[in-house]
């Protein structure tokens, strides 16, 4: 049983790394590094020079660095798929009678396959913005399901670590509110990012910061919602820290960690607006938002466990 928990933690870490690498592909403009899928220029190992290109692919599409960045993303994706598969097998073996564990990990595995297929569609559609957003959202659903399954298995193995906690009923809604806010923020964020790309095409050779100013009211909603999120987490922290509720250390860590990341997020986001649209900052801004969603799922699962007998 412990093996399942260990593998689920590895799955979580590797999926987060994959989200990071996926974002890296996007910010480094390597998304079309391989014009075909799953092979790269019709080869299992990407070409290292123009002579290795097949006749039917236009040679101008070949860029050695971009091809390898994209291909390493695919290889890492395949590795993560395998890890989730193994985790799922362990789950079905050891937690047969625990639907909360098996159902979510099986669903995660299924969505992982869909995610791979969607990756191929990204190449087919030459990075259609809606498909890119969907690709990220599916990754977030996968990570959420694995986190949920992992914590549930820990609860079964180690006993109820939330048995003493008496969280007030309405914190469920605060946590769900945070979750919804984070998801909406992520969607608006990808809209801003996509809008920036379109704007860059329509206004070539204009700096990113100026393009950002030209974008619609989305960017203000993004900031306002970010501040609301900060308020919600502050409020949650205030409730959780009440010692009379006997909160678990895990819950306190999850809330504090979330607060730190939101503060970092606001700094990163504003630096994009006021200084420059730096790819590295964009990447971490996106990645930290996926961590925030993960943490809200952690909190939700803790709350759920605190209500279990």
């Amino acid at each position: 049983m412990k093996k399942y928990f260990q593998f689920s933690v590895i799955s979580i870490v590797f999926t987060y790394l994959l989200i990071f690498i996926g974002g890296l592909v996007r910010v480094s403009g390597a998304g079309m590094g391989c014009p075909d899928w799953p092979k790269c220029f019709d080869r299992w190992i990407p070409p290292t020079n123009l002579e290795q290109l097949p006749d039917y692919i236009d040679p101008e599409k070949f860029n050695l660095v971009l091809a390898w960045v994209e291909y390493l993303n695919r290889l890492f994706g395949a590795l993560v798929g395998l890890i989730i598969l193994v985790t799922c097998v362990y789950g079905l073996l050891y937690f047969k009678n625990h639907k909360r564990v098996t159902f979510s990990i099986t669903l995660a595995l299924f969505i992982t396959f869909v995610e791979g297929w969607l990756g191929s569609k990204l190449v087919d559609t030459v990075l259609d913005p809606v498909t890119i957003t969907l690709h990220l959202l599916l990754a977030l659903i996968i990570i959420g399901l694995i986190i949920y399954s992992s914590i549930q298995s820990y609860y079964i193995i180690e006993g109820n670590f939330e048995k003493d906690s008496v969280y007030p009923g309405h914190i469920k809604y605060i946590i769900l509110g945070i979750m919804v806010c984070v998801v909406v923020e992520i969607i608006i964020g990808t809209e801003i990012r996509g809008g920036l790309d379109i704007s860059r095409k329509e206004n070539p050779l204009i700096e990113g910061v100026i393009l950002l100013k030209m974008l619609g009211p989305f960017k203000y909603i993004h900031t306002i919602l970010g501040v609301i999120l900060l308020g919600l987490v502050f409020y949650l922290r205030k409730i959780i820290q009440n010692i009379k509720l006997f909160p678990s250390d895990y819950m306190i860590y999850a809330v504090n960690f979330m607060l730190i990341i939101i503060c970092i997020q606001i700094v990163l986001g504003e630096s994009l607006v006021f200084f420059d649209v730096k790819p590295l900052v964009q990447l971490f801004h996106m990645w930290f938002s996926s961590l925030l969603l993960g943490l809200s799922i952690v909190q939700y699962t803790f709350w759920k466990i605190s209500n279990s007998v």
Partner: protein
Amino acid sequence: MIKKIHLVSVLSLVVFLGIGATWVITKATQASQVLPAVIKQAPPFSLVSHHGEPFTKDSLRNKISVLDFIFTSCPGPCPIMSNNMRTLYNQYKLHPDLQFISITVDPEYDSQEVLKIYADANGVNDKRWKFLRADMEKVKKLSSDGFLLMSDNLPAGHSVKFVLIDGDGNIRQYYNGTDKASISILRNHINLFLKKLRSSV
């Protein structure tokens, strides 16, 4: 309890990812900034535009040019090519140092008047996009020997490539004029060449 070691390892992971990502982004940016090498000089030519003005190799000087071969009654790839060319033409409306050139491979049908109608239909309202013609033999030679394009069975057998020509009249790269991914690379190259052209002025 969270130990110090956990915090240190999380922070090191973030730093490690940051350094790795910076390296990849730098490499990828450098790789995307490389200008395609000179393939050959554009050949000398003398054509007439849909405005009735002469257009020669000298007209390529100090401009970035995107050139293709089409014909107005073409049912196949030309509408897609002209559609993509029109998108670029509209996107670069603030950049007079980028010009678009479409040479007809069916000069018998595509008279100056027909080319003018075709230009209007594509929303051409300034001199950045020119439709050119010359007699068939000249065009055939220009396409095959001059621009090294497939020109076996003109007009139907013309190439679907877009040719990118720099400010010195050098052919720098070919792109598939019907393919979105290829056009996106062309857009990146146009930006690089425009920046270079400006810095040299």
